[in-house]
């Protein structure tokens, strides 16, 4: 199978614009979680989210357009024949909210193909395009598909872009499901009590070795393994035995030709919800004799849903480049099963492979194994 290189990436989150700002914010232990300004939260379990300030003003169209403009400013150099895979759970859902409240709005960002159309038009892409919807594992599934296309000689260049908004729609829904934390997001903490939503967008441009060389692009790292598997257990709750995630991790490691001991670190989904984090720890404990250093970004960015897999893959590549993983913001009393492997401080790592994992409603799990740039 051909090598899959990441040659360009970008991100916008509640921590700010750009991958450097994201990385510096995470390493500095900062959080972008703050009181929500764009809708009233009086009747919800909490009033906090990882919102991007520039999106608070109500636009004439969808906030998604503003987010995409922020993500692609300045416009990156993407070959026009690039296959585009977007990943979003609810796209421009703010338009549905406004429409149902009888406020004037176009309805041009509600359907999932319109998310892909928006980005293709913005970047002048002429290749095929699709949106992938797999709940909070959407971007990770899109990365797996994109890497497969290149790996199996069916594309030379693939742009994977994950994006989702904080909206009253999703906020009220998580609140109704009692999934929100009334306090703060505390991944892998014994006192964790729920997630905090966040919004964001991130892109990764993948290229084959040949196209990478031909276009004189520098490799920022490689995607060497991926796996996607279902729990077959429950629609909104993860499987307690973690078997779906175990399966997805095993698939990714097999594809990469690696063993668990080859991984230098794990970027976990780590939503801060009681059951998700317990499921992940169960899966990790089944797989690893000794847990590698692992962390979650959700206490800093919020849970960015369909975008989180793309954001966390960028963080994973930065982690490999800097040989450290960011602190798990919000963590104070570690889950005993996590031991010293998860920390509220920066942790040094040593090695060239890192695993990222994401799971979502519908019982879906997706994983990607990354390899540090310069190692072949």
């Amino acid at each position, binding site marked *: 199978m051909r090598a899959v290189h990441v040659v360009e990436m970008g991100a916008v989150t509640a921590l700010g614009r750009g991958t450097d700002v994201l990385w510096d914010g995470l390493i500095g232990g900062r959080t972008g979680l703050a009181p929500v300004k764009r809708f009233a939260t009086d009747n919800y379990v909490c009033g906090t989210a990882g919102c991007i300030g520039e999106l608070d003003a109500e636009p004439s169209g969808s906030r998604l357009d503003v987010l995409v403009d922020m993500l692609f400013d300045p416009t990156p150099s993407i070959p026009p024949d690039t296959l585009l895979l977007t990943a979003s759970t*609810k796209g421009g859902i703010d338009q549905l909210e406004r429409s149902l409240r009888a406020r004037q709005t176009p309805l041009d960002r509600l359907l999932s193909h319109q998310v892909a159309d928006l980005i293709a038009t913005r970047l002048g892409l002429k290749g095929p395009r699709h949106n992938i*919807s797999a709940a909070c594992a959407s971007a990770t599934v899109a990365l797996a598909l994109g890497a497969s296309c290149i790996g199996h000689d069916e594309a030379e260049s693939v742009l994977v872009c994950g994006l989702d908004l904080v909206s009253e*729609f999703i906020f009220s*829904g998580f609140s*109704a499901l*009692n999934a929100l934390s009334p306090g703060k997001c505390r991944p892998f903490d014994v006192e964790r009590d729920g997630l905090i939503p966040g919004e964001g967008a991130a892109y990764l441009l993948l290229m084959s070795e040949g196209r990478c060389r031909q276009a004189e692009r520098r490799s920022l790292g490689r995607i060497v393994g991926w796996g996607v598997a*279902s729990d077959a257990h*429950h629609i*909104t709750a993860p499987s307690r035995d973690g078997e779906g995630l175990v399966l997805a991790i095993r698939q990714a490691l097999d594809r990469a030709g690696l063993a668990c001991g080859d991984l230098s670190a794990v970027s976990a989904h780590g939503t801060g919800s009681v059951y998700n984090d317990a499921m992940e720890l169960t899966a990790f404990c089944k797989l690893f004799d000794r847990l590698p250093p692992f962390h979650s970004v959700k206490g800093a960015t919020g849970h960015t849903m369909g975008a989180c897999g793309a954001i966390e893959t960028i963080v994973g590549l930065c982690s490999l480049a800097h040989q450290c993983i960011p602190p798990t913001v919000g963590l104070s009393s570690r889950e005993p099963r996590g031991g010293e492997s998860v920390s509220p401080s920066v942790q040094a790592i040593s090695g060239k492979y890192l695993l990222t994992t994401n799971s979502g409603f519908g019982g*879906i799990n997706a994983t990607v194994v990354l390899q540090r740039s310069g190692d072949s």
Partner: protein
Amino acid sequence: MRLKILGIGWVTPWGIGSGQSGEVFQPGPGKLPAMRSRHFLDKPHNRFGRFDQYTKAGFGAIALALRSAGLNRWKKKQPIGLVLGTRRGSLETDAAYFETAAYHGGAMASPNLFAYTLPNCVLGEASIQFGLTGPAFVVDDTGSGHLDGIHTALNLIRWGLCQTVVAGWCDVDSKMIDVNSGGQCGAIFFVLTEGSDTALWRWQGGRIFFKSDPIDDIGEFARFFLETKTGG
């Protein structure tokens, strides 16, 4: 790649079927028939009545396809994938959910409806019912004969991400938006796997063929399969 069709199931305004007793697949616009779990399953399903229309139609067609493939009964979970192509997805349920959340400051938001505002949750319901542990996700229907889900599934097989995939299309009416999708409503799923070298179905250059006949529409795909009674 040669391909083999192991089963088929559908729900359209014209009826519910799986090709068992000469049933003919007929797509079209209109209202979907009343759906009960007994139409699709051997035993009652205690949550089926709470499913939205999109989930009922998609789940039902997947159940019939698996039954016609003989894969509906299981003791051990099966590594079978699920891929669904859709234009409107859960849009109608999104609107119904937000009607419950938009007033009284969100105090009356329905958690049951919210769970079905993700278009992939229908696949989660099917994976639970039939113990399917393969990849499961939704792709947008780009208007190419409702075959986007099928083509994506065939890629999963070719790439070795799974050996067998239940793949198809599902769309239900939405008052929210005119999506110009030809007005078709319904769900149709096929159980697909790689065929032997002598299989009459093949997938080449991103196009499905039966012998030398190209298939460019999911309705044609169903009709060829049902009329020729040839799965391999």
